[in-house]
């Protein structure tokens, strides 16, 4: 089975901090994604990557950046955390255009 591992289940950060969310997948998938989930809004795509060092903006990239130095690892960076970035963050990976496999999520609270 595909395993997508997110480094933290819960994080609490202060406004203005730089935050790193890490994600690792073990199935050699080309594509990796970062979504955030908020009540009533579903899952919204922040950034995705279709190859090492390649990245594309999703629907809500403002305030975020990403890094993909190795195929199995995709990092989401909040440059200066704000309270409106309190959310559940979900990493996913996929092979070609097939279904996405998700990690367990990181619940981030920005105080």
């Amino acid at each position, binding site marked *: 089975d595909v395993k*997508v591992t997110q480094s933290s289940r819960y994080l609490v950060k202060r406004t203005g901090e730089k935050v790193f969310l890490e994600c690792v997948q073990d199935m050699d998938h080309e594509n990796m994604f970062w*979504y955030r989930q908020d009540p009533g*809004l579903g*899952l919204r795509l922040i950034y995705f990557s279709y190859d090492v060092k390649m990245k594309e903006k999703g629907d809500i990239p403002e305030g975020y950046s990403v890094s993909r130095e190795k195929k199995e690892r995709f990092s989401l960076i909040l440059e200066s955390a704000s309270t409106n970035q309190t959310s559940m963050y979900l990493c996913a990976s996929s*092979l070609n*255009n097939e279904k996405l496999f998700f990690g*367990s999520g990181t619940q981030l609270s920005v105080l």
Partner: protein
Amino acid sequence: DQQVKQNSPSLSVQEGRISILNCDYTNSMFDYFLWYKKYPAEGPTFLISISSIKDKNEDGRFTVFLNKSAKHLSLHIVPSQPGDSAVYFCAASESTSYGKLTFGQGTILTVHP
């Protein structure tokens, strides 16, 4: 602009009965549709999918129907079980988009014993 919409925030069903979850989309370029199930504090898990060349796909208790002319899909769960209680998301993608999925807002399904 919400390209995928689930207009029912919640649905309550009795155990053993049918659950029908609905989803509408506006982007005519979407050609692959999926349903995901999500429990609290867990990531979404894939449930069932359908390509735009089909109008029905079945997997055990789960059946997805696609009506391309109406830009509408639905998920039927028969019979519903208490363990099916979760949030259900429909999602759609274009074949040229690296598998990028656009999700609906989700429907909370509660199955009562």
